[in-house]
């Protein structure tokens, strides 16, 4: 089964969601990310959804779960690149993504994380 690659960017991890995700891929990503955060002692996770033109409650729940697991391990989650039509739709869908920060792109997301975790992190 394919797995979503996780890139280490200093103290942070980056995942890019580009494919239609089925249940097992989502669970594998949650597991892989949690293990990686713990192993690397990462302070932040960036989830790049800039290629998703549809985000439904299944993906929303995956993002919330990743964020909750990361928080337990003292890491902050930032979702980057949400397309405007997706943002509008998510609000109407009723998906709240509590505790999840958002940024326009990876660069801004990293800057946000650096500010959030401080210089020594």
């Amino acid at each position, binding site marked *: *089964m394919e797995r979503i690659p996780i890139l280490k960017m200093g103290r942070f991890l980056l995942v890019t969601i580009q494919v*239609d*995700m*089925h*249940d*097992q*891929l989502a669970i594998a990503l949650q597991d892989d990310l949690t293990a990686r955060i713990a192993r690397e002692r990462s302070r932040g996770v960036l989830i790049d959804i800039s290629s998703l*033109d*549809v*985000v*439904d*409650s*299944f993906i*929303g*729940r995956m993002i919330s779960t990743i964020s909750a697991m990361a928080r337990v391990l003292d890491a902050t989650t930032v979702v980057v690149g949400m*397309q*405007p*039509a*997706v943002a*509008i*739709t998510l609000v*109407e*869908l*009723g*998906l709240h993504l509590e505790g999840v920060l958002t940024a326009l792109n990876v660069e801004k997301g990293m800057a946000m994380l650096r500010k959030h975790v401080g210089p020594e992190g």
Partner: protein
Amino acid sequence: MAPTDGSRGDRAAAAQRRGHRAHARYEQGLSLVDQTKLVTAASELARNALDYGGGGEVRIERMSEGARRGVRLVFDDRGPGISDLELAMRDGYTTGGGLGLGLGGARRLCNEFLIESAAGRGTRVTIARWR
């Protein structure tokens, strides 16, 4: 019994892609936001049909009424059906560990929403967006 390979999720993804392709070919002028809302609602309903209904079918119809143009989707499954529709429509209510937003969300995202279901009779959900 849920399959342990990715096939069920792949079928959900495939249903979603068919929805995408159908509206991508659709020339009747739904805006990008309208398309996104419709396809997102479709994704919720397709997932419901797979997870709870044991699979099913979706019918995609173009509509025109005078100058108005729209797209209608009808989701049918032959699953166990829903005995308490009001409860099922409530945000946060889920029997499957999801977020419980699918039915209420689909209703909010579409101009038209109709659900017909009864215990033992399967479920039909009809949604539509108009330009």
